[in-house]
């Protein structure tokens, strides 16, 4: 049996900000998907329930009652999100998925560095989360897209684009081991390279799809690592933002080319040098993967 990465059948989820509009809605969707959502937290709302899920005032309270919580998903508004992340980390939760967008970058920088010191994995912020199809979803990815497990691991900086590529893969009969949306902010908890390393270790994953975009040097660093021979599984990539002008921020706070760094050309060149094929359009990813599977 496959294992997938980050989330699986053993994932027990706490929803921070569960009484908010997004929190309660996606708690429901996750339950519908089959995710074991076992508790929620909203300060001052302890004792209530949301979708039948018990709500606690603090993460500590939740863990005292339900000690096997191992994952938290954060829907708390941006101004209070950082505090929720610290609360989850300090309570001993080892995987924290942050959906919240608009968290100040300096906050994210501090809590990401903190998580690294504490050995906690953060996915996000400003990300769609993680799904291991048919097993568990900790995120907001649409349920109806993720209907087939299989050999392709996806790591992506984009939400919608990922749904689209997953959709086409599944349509083509190709299932996914795990799909990880790492988020579009300049500072994120887990980067492309870190996820690719996890896929390399995962027996279920046999092919890796990297969906990148302009800005930063994550893709270049991944290419360098692939060049060192440490990734043995086939990797294919798509990079969006070829036509974005330098110095302009393209929707994602992280999607900006500056000081000559993070351009489309530099990323494509880096991948091509290590024989990673780069699709010209999102749908071309499916063709590239099919060539390997054939």
């Amino acid at each position, binding site marked *: 049996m496959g294992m997938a990465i980050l989330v699986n059948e053993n994932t027990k989820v706490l929803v921070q900000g569960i009484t908010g509009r997004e929190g309660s809605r996606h708690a429901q969707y996750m339950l519908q998907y089959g995710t074991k959502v076992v508790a929620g937290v909203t300060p001052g709302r302890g004792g209530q329930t949301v979708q039948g899920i018990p709500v606690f005032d603090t993460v500590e309270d939740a863990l005292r009652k339900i000690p096997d919580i191992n994952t938290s998903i954060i829907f708390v508004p941006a101004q209070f999100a950082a505090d929720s992340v610290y609360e989850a980390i300090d309570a001993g939760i080892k995987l924290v998925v942050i959906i919240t967008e608009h968290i100040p970058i*300096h906050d994210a920088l501090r809590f990401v560095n903190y998580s690294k010191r504490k050995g906690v994995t953060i996915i996000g912020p400003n990300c769609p989360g993680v799904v291991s199809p048919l097993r568990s979803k900790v995120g907001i990815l*649409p349920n109806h897209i993720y209907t087939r497990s299989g050999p392709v691991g996806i790591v992506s900086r984009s939400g*919608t684009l990922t749904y689209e590529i997953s959709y086409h893969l599944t349509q083509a009969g190709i299932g996914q081991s795990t799909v990880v949306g790492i988020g579009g902010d300049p500072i994120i908890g887990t980067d492309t390279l870190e996820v690719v390393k996890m896929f390399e270790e995962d027996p279920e994953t046999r092919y890796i799809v990297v969906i990148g*975009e302009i800005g930063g040097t994550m893709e270049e660093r991944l290419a360098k690592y692939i060049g060192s021979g440490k990734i043995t599984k086939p990797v294919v990539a798509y990079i969006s933002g070829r*036509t974005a002008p330098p110095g302009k921020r393209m*929707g*994602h706070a992280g999607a900006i080319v500056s*000081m000559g760094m993070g351009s489309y050309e530099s990323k494509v060149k880096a991948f091509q040098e290590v024989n990673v094929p780069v699709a010209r359009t999102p749908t071309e990813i499916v063709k590239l993967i099919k060539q390997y599977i054939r």
Partner: protein
Amino acid sequence: MRLLEYKGKELLNKYGVKIPRGAIVKSLEDIQTLKAMKFPLFAKSQVPFAGRAKMGLVRRVDTINDAENAARDYLGKVIQDYPIRKVLFEEGVNVAKELYISITLDRENRGYLMLASTEGGIDIEEVARKSPEKIIRLYIDDYEGLRDYMIRGVAQKLGLEGSAVQDFVTVTKAMYRVFTEYDAELVEINPLALTTDGQLMALDVKVMIDDNSLYRHSDISIEDSDYTTEELEARKYGLHYVELTGYVGIMANGAGLTMATMDLVKEFGHEPADFLDVGGGASEDSVKEGLKILLTDDRIKAVLVNIFGGITRCDEVAKGVVGALNEVKTNKPIFIRLKGTNEEEGRKILTEVGLKTYETAEEAMEALSKAITR
């Protein structure tokens, strides 16, 4: 967002950076406040982009009358969609040497980066390209912070001596405070002048603040930023809008998909007119307001809408499109790709007003391509 020069100077000055004596003029009445200053002055239009001098937006004024003329010329002028609301009048400074200094985010190492160079006064991207060895880099850990001894090391490499070393410590620590306390993404002084009487003075500054942090900086107004009127309007509806130079209007949901759509337009040999992301969870309203921006843009010949419904519901998108068409008279052709959640309902709504939908973005773009070259 980028702050206007005078506002960035104000923040740095608060923490101890010396700046030329100056005054802000917002209207012709303010000109009288300049009487106390030492002429000649330099009139600097407060616009949030580089290359002001070349655009004739900075000039020397020798008298109050000159100053008034400058203010009259500049105020209200619209440059690159940006209306000039303020003019900074500054006294001159005798410069012995111009340095470059900045603090920025280091995304890769999740920390901060100080860049310094003896090549001040020119575009640092140019220095980085032409003589990267002239840029001194200092990594700063977010916890350990910027220590004096590190700064002294940079000062040494810049060739500073005597009291200028301690002054440089003061300047950079002030920059660091602004950077961390004001959630900045960039704090740049360029040039940092060493004056003939041995002082360090910030002649021009560029401060970029993280938009998402504005709620905790009550002393920063979005009025003092680089947002154009359109961009501010788009922000209200949760839209991300960036004006580009082409003629194919683009609207999509999600930053990645929107960029991919731009790239597709180019792939077909056309030029995108904009980046317009209605968001991963777009609503009827945001779609309507977004599309209205494109329909009223004279540069745009045709519009490509690319929606993959995940969180976004296709029927909401369709309603938004219909809403925009009801409000704006247009004969621009619109090509809509609609896929995903509630796709059927969405298609039905659009068919009713005579709009065709496509299965893939490629198909929609192919149709658009034929329409505008026809």
